[in-house]
């Protein structure tokens, strides 16, 4: 994957395929600690302890179940290549939490990339799922929740062109502000 945001799209999709109707995506960029952390949490059916042990083995899991496959192993190897790691916590029937950590300034760390594109694809592709997106850069925090967006539009669905245009504007605005924070440290 060329961008971390593509991993985020992929892993979020795992949760939705596992029946989640709530997905929380958190991106934490802590430059003073030289760390970038991605947390993706869903309330899907979870992974059994047996499967969890082999969750990042692409050959063990790909064709036995649709719950996991190459996706998590790709994210894990991306994290490891950047002196980082990936962890999967899961409780059957409750949901799954994937945490990936990267060394922020590692030369092999892929850029975060087009988060707006990732979020829009998820939100439009799965209108029945509630998404929460939290992005932190050092001490600044941005947050977006799809149910709140729908409330802003009197309950009109996110698939309504007016609503999703507005949503895209909000997300583009967030990523613009994040970029400007990164351009002006301190």
């Amino acid at each position, binding site marked *: *994957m060329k961008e971390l945001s*593509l991993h985020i*799209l*992929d892993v979020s*999709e795992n949760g939705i*395929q596992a029946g989640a109707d709530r997905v929380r995506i958190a991106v934490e960029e802590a430059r003073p600690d030289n760390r970038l952390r991605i947390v993706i949490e869903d309330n899907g059916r979870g992974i059994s302890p047996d499967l969890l042990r082999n969750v990042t083995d692409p050959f063990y899991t790909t064709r036995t179940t*649709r719950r996991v*496959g*190459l*996706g998590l192993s*790709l994210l894990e190897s991306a994290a490891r290549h950047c002196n980082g790691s990936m962890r999967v916590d899961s409780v059957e029937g409750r949901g799954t939490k994937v945490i990936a950590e990267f060394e922020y300034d590692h030369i092999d760390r892929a850029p975060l990339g*087009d988060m707006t*594109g*990732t979020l*829009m*694809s*998820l939100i*439009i*592709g*799965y209108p029945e799922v509630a998404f929460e997106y939290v992005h932190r850069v050092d001490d600044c925090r941005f947050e977006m929740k799809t149910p709140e967006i729908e409330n802003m539009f009197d309950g*009109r*669905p996110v*698939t*309504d*062109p*007016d609503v*999703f*245009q507005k949503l895209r504007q909000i997300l583009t605005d967030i990523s613009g502000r994040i970029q400007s924070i990164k351009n002006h440290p301190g």
Partner: protein
Amino acid sequence: MARLSIDDLKKIKEKTAKETSLREGRAKIKIMVHMGTCGIAAGARDVMNALMDELAESDRDDIRVVASGCMGMCSSEPNVTVEVDGEEPIIYQKMDANKMRQVFMRHVLKGEVQTDFALAKM
């Protein structure tokens, strides 16, 4: 609060009509972008975003865009399935943003199947 003008009322009427049609599920055309790991790695996100732009511009309320997982044809990803009511679904293969725009404008809006990009009829 500002007073409502006739134009405002008209806008509200149009929007409500649009909303109701969405709720009543009048979608006649379903466009499915396959976004498994394979699809995403091959560029399905760009395809999806191009599709959203086209949909917004078309101002049609009977078209539904959905995402779905891998369908087992990873080597021809990104795949897109177009299902028009009463017709056989068409699977398009190796899509990109431009091909998606062409399929939307020709197949979805005008009913001309783009056989050059098609993988199969289901």
